């Protein structure tokens, strides 16, 4: 992609992501009418189509004829998504959100954004989109399960089912956080990107949930992570484990300060230990085949 066109593309991507998050807001708050062809859906579909069309245009005009599979694939899948939703009727429930073509369209879009500039020389805006799109986009769309939007720890106790749900959601969030941080370390991206990503997810989740109480925690987590990266660039594992520990302990500290922790102490302490262990495993594991590792 030519340098001149990058800002336009970035703008389109961010716009698309923003609209997806706003859709999530409508989903969580049930503020949108229960039809598929609403103005909101129209805007999102338009933005999505523009991203695909723009990429297609770029690729068709590039010398060397790069792959057009992604933009064409996205357009086809998005078309199938609209057709399927129209056929089934949107009920603004999980069956609409988890319709396979819908999942695939969003996944393709987010995947495209996360592969924009996977290199240390990328500009801050490019790096922010590359590293933040997955975290912000996935949790934006899956807000129903986000621990920053639906807080299970101050509502449910005793019943294994909903506590188990909350624990799994928190673990999933920690895993996504650690994986994002790990990727920023391994691609040696410039300082401040992870902080920007955490600010981005904090704001987007606050918009969806109407609650800004977790934003300071995310900023503190980002600052600590960036601090360790600057102070000890070699301490990669430590920075990831500390990032997970601060976030998990800070999450329950925030709940304790702003409302209550309804869970048994054993559960939330155990969850923090489990989350930190998981971060340790994720920071250490290498999936490459042995000969490549050598």
């Amino acid at each position, binding site marked *: 992609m030519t340098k001149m066109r990058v800002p336009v593309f970035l703008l389109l991507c961010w716009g698309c992501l923003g609209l997806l998050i706003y859709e999530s807001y409508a989903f969580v708050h049930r503020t949108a009418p229960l039809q598929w062809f609403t103005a909101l859906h129209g805007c999102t579909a338009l933005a999505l189509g523009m991203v695909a069309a723009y990429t297609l245009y770029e690729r068709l005009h590039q010398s060397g004829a790069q792959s057009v599979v992604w933009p064409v694939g996205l357009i086809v899948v998005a078309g199938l998504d609209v057709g399927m939703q129209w056929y089934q009727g949107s009920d603004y429930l*999980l069956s609409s959100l988890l319709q396979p073509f819908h999942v*695939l369209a969003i996944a393709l879009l987010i995947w495209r954004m996360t592969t924009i500039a996977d290199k240390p020389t990328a500009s801050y805006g490019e790096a922010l989109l590359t590293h933040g799109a997955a975290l912000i986009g996935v949790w934006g769309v899956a807000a*129903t399960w986000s621990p920053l939007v639906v807080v299970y720890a101050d509502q449910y106790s005793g019943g294994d089912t909903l506590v*188990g*749900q909350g624990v*799994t959601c928190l673990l999933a969030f920690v895993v996504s956080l650690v994986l994002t941080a790990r990727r920023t370390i391994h691609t040696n991206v410039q300082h401040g990107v992870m902080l920007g990503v955490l600010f981005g997810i904090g704001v987007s989740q606050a918009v969806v949930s109407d609650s800004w109480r977790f934003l300071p925690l995310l900023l503190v987590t980002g600052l600590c992570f960036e601090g360790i990266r600057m102070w000890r660039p070699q301490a990669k594992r430590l920075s990831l484990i500390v990032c997970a520990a601060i976030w998990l302990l800070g999450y329950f500290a925030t709940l304790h300060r702003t409302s209550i922790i309804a869970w048994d102490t054993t559960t939330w302490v*155990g969850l923090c230990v*489990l989350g930190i262990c998981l971060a340790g495993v994720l920071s250490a594991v290498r999936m490459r*085949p042995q000969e490549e590792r050598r």
Partner: protein
Amino acid sequence: MTPIRIAQNLSLPRRLAQTLACPAVAHWLLMPAFVWFVGGLFLDGWAHNHGRVDNTFFTPWHAVFYSGYAAVAVVLALLVWGSWMRGEQWQRDLALPYRIAILAAPGFGMAGVADLWWHTTYGFESGIELLLSPPHLALATSMVFICLAPARTDDESRSMGARIPALLSVLCAWSIATFILQFNHPFGIVWPAQTRIGETGVSVGIVGNVFHFALTGLMGGWVLARRFAPGSLTVVLVVNALLIALMGDEYRFAVGIGAAAILCELLDVLLARQGVTMRMRVVVRAGALAGLSAAGYYAVIAVTGVLIWPVAVCAGLCVLSAGVAAATQAVLEN
């Protein structure tokens, strides 16, 4: 691998110490001890899930579990003794995963004492509190470190037969992880057969399903990256499914996961013949295994009972699990 030559004029203890220097000997010695140890864990879990325990620490199930630990500890102590007899220092001369396992063994013992104190002081938890209590997590973490030692010291150039202990090591570690995460395991609570769409239980089930199937996909990718023999993944997943089934008596899901694993192994053979790079194959296997194991799970429910969730949701979850596993796998390659 060069066979170790043992001089015939050495005394018996010294000859034994020389024999223990061979990594394969340690691997094979640990195998039955691991079966005992991890078998004891699942036996205890079965007893808890079937109301076969009372409020005492000294149960027959704990006896099996902790005697399994003693067997593992004896083998690890033998390794330390062998190292000492050869005039080496185990802290320096043994492979790092074994050094960690040797340190984890007393760690497990201390966690066991802490567990006894915890139960005496705070009583006996049930459900999720039981799984997430700090002493139990410490026990599980030590167990994983101990059981992973043969897999982490495994040499991919060895014959398939010589790598059986490493495969068992993977099975043990994976089984311990799924045991601790059973509070939302799809084989334990079958949400797609119990809840209607729109209810809270559906969103509960969705998280558990995606989390576990994506994790299964990642494990499949890891097994492929370690170049285990074809069929290894199927064995690990089916045995693990049967062990988890002990908790809720849901043995039918072993068929679904087995079918998914076989399909993935066939897909991988096909990709290898096409000359696809190992990196790409690992990502594809992770995604395919996650998606197919989810599909196998819903298919088993539909065939053997009633699948209440809409087909669109089930299909969407297969795609979602596959996407999450493949993306995570790609990130973890670096």
